[in-house]
Every structure is written in C-alpha cells, then in structure tokens.
C-alpha cells in the first residue's frame, strides 16, 4: 500500500511538472515578442526595452527563467495581468467562488435528477420510460451547451419572463462580498431574503445549462451500474427472503451501485470548468470562465498561464484523492497492490 501511494505521488509530481512546463512555455511560444506586447503599439526606445526585458527576466537563460517561474508560482505569485495590472492569483481567487457556486448548483441539479432517473430506468428496463429516459439523456449528452443556454434564455427569459437574462444579482442590490458565494452573502447582508431569491433566480438557468451534460452522464451511469448490481446473487437471495423491494433497491443495491457513480461525479470537476467557460460567456456570469475567454481575446498571457496551472493542479489533486479514496470505499483494493 505504501508503494502504491509512493507511485501515485511520483506520477502526480511528474504531471504537475509537465503542466508547469507547458504553462511556462506559452508566453514564449506565442507569436510576437512578449516585451513588445506589454509595451503596446506605441513602442519604446532601446533602453526602455532592455529594462523591461530585464524586469520580466526574459534576458536570462531558459532554465533560470523556468526556475524563477516555478519558485514564485509555489509562493503563490503567478505574475501580473497585462490588462488590469492586478496579480493573477488575486484575480483568480476573487472570481473562483462565483464559478464554484455555479458548478456546485449545476452538479446538485444533475445528481438530484440524474440518479433517480437512472434508478427508475434500470428497474423498468426496456419499458417505454426506460427508452424515453435514455433517449433524452443521449440528446442531453450531445447538447452543444452554448446553444442550450441560449435556448433556455429564449424560452424562460425572453418568452416567459421568469428569470433574468444575465449576471449574478440585480443591480438594485448592493451585496458586500464576504464569502464570494452570492447565496450566502445575500443572507448575511442587510437585504436578506429578497436579495437571496433574486440571486437564486439568476443562478437557475446557468446551472441547468451547465448541469445538462453531467445529468445525462450520471443518468446513464446510474442505469448501467444499477443493472449490474440488480443481477447479483445477493440481490436474488434478498428477494427470495421476501425483503421489501424498496429496501432491496434503495439500500442493498444502491449502496454498491453508488461506487462508480460517485467516482464519475468526482471526475467531473474538469467538465465543470469546460462548462463554466461556455456557460459564463452566455450568461455574463462573473466567474473564471468568462475571465479566461476575455484574457485570450486580449492576449493576456500571464492570466492564461496562471489559471491553466491552478486549474490543472486542482484537477490532478482531485483525481488523486479519488484514487486514494478507493482504499476506504473498497477494502478489497488494499491487499491487491
């Protein structure tokens, strides 16, 4: 078991090293001179140019540049945005709660619908409802979510007028940022419930748009996982013993069927970020996705570089946690490696 941990840890380090190398090289691979890009179109004389190049550390050898990049990154310094002149890490973590709130809500939506649908589809296998559920989930899985978001806006915001089109909260509320989670911040502010419900209304459509693909995946996973478990011997034994079927399905079968489902949900962090990039652009949600797209359009390389590094590190850590959690979920794993 110690050896397994050690191997996992080495892999993690290697992957992080690779990610940092790629992020490091982006500013050097990009077309054009990064110094000229910072100076802008007006240009500068040779002396200013040399000073700027020195300040950026670009006059030193590549290994030394990389060493500086990685040591300052470990101290939380990921450079400074070209456009806003703010620290990349400060900007990233100021926006991250908005994305996290949206992502958590989207996953909540996906789980709360996906798992029951999957269970029902498995129980009533090959029925009309099974086909309907699986057909719908295949459509959901194929959905271009940037279009789905627009369709939701068209129907619920423009057509029915139920929800606002964009943003996190109406401009009439002035909510001080405490946790960065709007639903919590509104409750501890002076405005309380009216502001809370306003924020909730803003959250619903983006969360549905973003949760659609995870919902489809979870429903399909739950169905196939449940089908596998339902056929197991111990379930047949339980049925023969006359144990009530709701108990067999929701306690005996679901407990084992949940293992792969929980894994898939954990591994979805990456697709949440992908979803965030598209969903936030559609709904003008002030999170990291919208910020990143703006950074690419403005050629703000420190932001692209820094946020890729942070996001990739998060995903690598989460995946490792999932790997390790098998030891606690499934005791059989402990002996095998």
């Amino acid at each position, binding site marked *: 078991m110690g050896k397994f941990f050690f191997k996992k840890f080495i892999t993690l380090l290697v992957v992080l090293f690779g990610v940092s190398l790629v992020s490091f090289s982006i500013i050097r691979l990009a077309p054009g001179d990064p110094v000229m890009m910072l100076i802008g179109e007006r240009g500068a004389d040779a002396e200013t140019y040399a000073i700027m190049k020195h300040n950026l550390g670009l006059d030193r050898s590549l290994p030394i540049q990389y060493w500086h990049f990685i040591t300052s990154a470990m101290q939380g310094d990921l450079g400074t945005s070209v456009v806003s002149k703010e620290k990349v890490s400060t900007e990233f973590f100021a926006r991250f709660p908005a994305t996290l709130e949206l992502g958590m809500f989207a996953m909540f939506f996906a789980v709360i619908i996906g798992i029951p649908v999957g269970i029902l589809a498995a129980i009533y296998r090959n029925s009309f409802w099974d086909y309907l559920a699986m057909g719908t989930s295949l459509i959901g899985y194929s959905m271009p979510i940037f279009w789905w978001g627009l369709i939701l806006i068209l129907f619920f915001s423009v057509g029915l007028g139920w929800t606002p089109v964009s943003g996190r909260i109406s401009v009439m509320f002035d909510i001080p940022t405490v946790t960065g989670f709007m639903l919590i911040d509104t409750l501890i502010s002076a405005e309380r419930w009216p502001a809370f419900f306003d924020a909730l209304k803003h959250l619903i459509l983006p969360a549905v748009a973003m949760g659609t693909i995870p919902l489809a995946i979870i429903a399909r996973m739950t169905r196939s996982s449940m089908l596998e478990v339902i056929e197991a011997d111990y379930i047949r034994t339980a049925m023969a013993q006359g144990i009530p079927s709701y108990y067999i399905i929701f306690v005996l079968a679901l407990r084992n069927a949940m293992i792969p489902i929980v894994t898939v949900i954990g591994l979805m962090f990456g697709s949440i970020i*992908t979803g965030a990039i598209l969903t936030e652009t559609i709904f003008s949600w002030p999170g990291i996705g919208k910020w990143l797209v703006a950074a690419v*359009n403005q050629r703000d390389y420190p932001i692209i570089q820094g946020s890729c590094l942070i996001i*990739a590190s998060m995903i690598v850590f989460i995946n490792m946690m999932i790997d390790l959690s098998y030891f606690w979920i499934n005791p059989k794993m402990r002996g095998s490696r």
Partner: protein
Amino acid sequence: MRAQFIDFWYYFKQNRGALAGLAVIFIFFITALLAPLFAPHNPAQIFPEHLLQRPFFFSEQINLFLGSDDVGRDLLSRLIYGARISMGIGLLVVIFSTSIGTMLGLISGYVGGRIDWFIMRVVDMMMSLPSILLAIFVVSVLGPNLLNGIIAVSVVAVPSFIRIVRASVLEEKKRQYVMASQTFGSSHWRILFINIFPNVLAPLIVQATLGFSDGILNAAALGFLGLGAQPPTAEWGTMLADSRAYIESAPWLVTLPGLCILMVVLAFNLLGDGLRDAFDPRLKK
C-alpha cells in the same frame, strides 16, 4: 473478413438508433459535398432589402426560405455551407487525431518501458486540463482562426486515442498468435502492423466515430467563443455567436444553427453506440 462483416451487420441493423444516426450523417455528408447545388443562394450574398426576414412559416415571403440574418444573408444557404465546414472539421480532426493517436498508442503499448512511461505521463498531463481549456491554450499560442481551431481540437482528441490503442495492444500482445508470429521470426513491424493492428481496429473505429462528434462540438464551441472560425465564415458556432444580439428580435437565427450542431453530434453518438454494441455483442445489455 467477409463473415465478420456479415456478423457485424446482423447486429448493427437491429439497432434502429444507430441506423437513424447513419442516415442523418449520410444526409449531412451529401449536403456538405453538394452544397453549391442545394443552396439557393451564395452564403455571402447580401440582400439589403431583406434584413432579418422571418422564415417561411412566419411570413409570406418564401424567397429566403429560412429567413435571413442581420445583414440580409440567406440563412438556409449559410446552414448548408456550414454543413460543409462542420463535416470537414470533423473529418480533419478525426484524421489528425486518429493517425497521431494510433501511432503513439501502438508504440506505447508495444515497446513499453520508458517510452511507454513518458507517453503515458504526457497523456495524463493533457487529460488533466479540461478539453476546451486545452483547446483555448493551443489557440492562444497559434492565434484564433479556423485552421488553428482544427489543430487545437485535434490535439485535445489525441490522448483518448492513445489510451484506447495502447490498452488493446497490451491485451493483444499477450495472445498466442503474437507469440507464434514471434517464433517464426517475424519483424517487429510485421507483428505490430500485420498481426496486432487489425485486432485494434474495432475499438478504434468506435472511438473515431465518437471523436467526430467531439471534434464538431469543440470546434463549434471555439467558433462560438470567437476563437475558431471567424466571421463571415458560415460556421455554425460562429453564426450562433453572431446572432446572440438578435435573440429577441430574430430567434430563428439562434435556433437553427444550434439545431444542426445537435443533430450531427447526436447522429454520431448514436452511430458510435451502435458500432460498439455491434462489434462486441457480449457487452450489450
């Protein structure tokens, strides 16, 4: 080989979803190939007196069948030419990513050792970045246009091909027919390409089909974000991005391009699922 195909077709034709998917893909391919014949107008032609005209089911004008966009271009013609671009993107992405992924996967699985370790760590690394983020990363280095978008989307697709091919090679390498071939003194090339490769084809074809839909979807997403095809190219994702401002006044501009993307992607996913079941009927539940 012939018997295998008959077997395959027997299982495949039972899957109505996959057949429907195949039909839709066929229609879109024909549309893409014969776009100049099908399209009533040139996709770039502007009709200044018909700005934001409604589609035929909302208006008496049937000259521009599915209406027109904000500068008066015929939407139907643009959608038809868009099929050409999207199917072309899908095809290029699959060719790029399949060939590179297959080569690396074969080497990784067959050679093993340090080379395998290195390739797999690069795969781990690429898979630790979300697909769109990785594509954005590539585009921000190369610059946003259609060709770079295709390259970015292909790069993103490569790791899954490497993994699938490598896994099948590892599986096949242990089989007795490979050992038999070795004892006859076959070269590595012969073992790899004549003995092993044909047995890797089934999962590869399935993955290539799914890669087609991923490629189209990701390229459209890049176009939508303004990082892929640039206007005035009639690419479905780019058309969606252009029409966002008219969501209230001209909903057909938003609805129809996205519907095309959804149909093509869905068709490829149906086909992929059907192929997987037909290649390995035991897996079918």
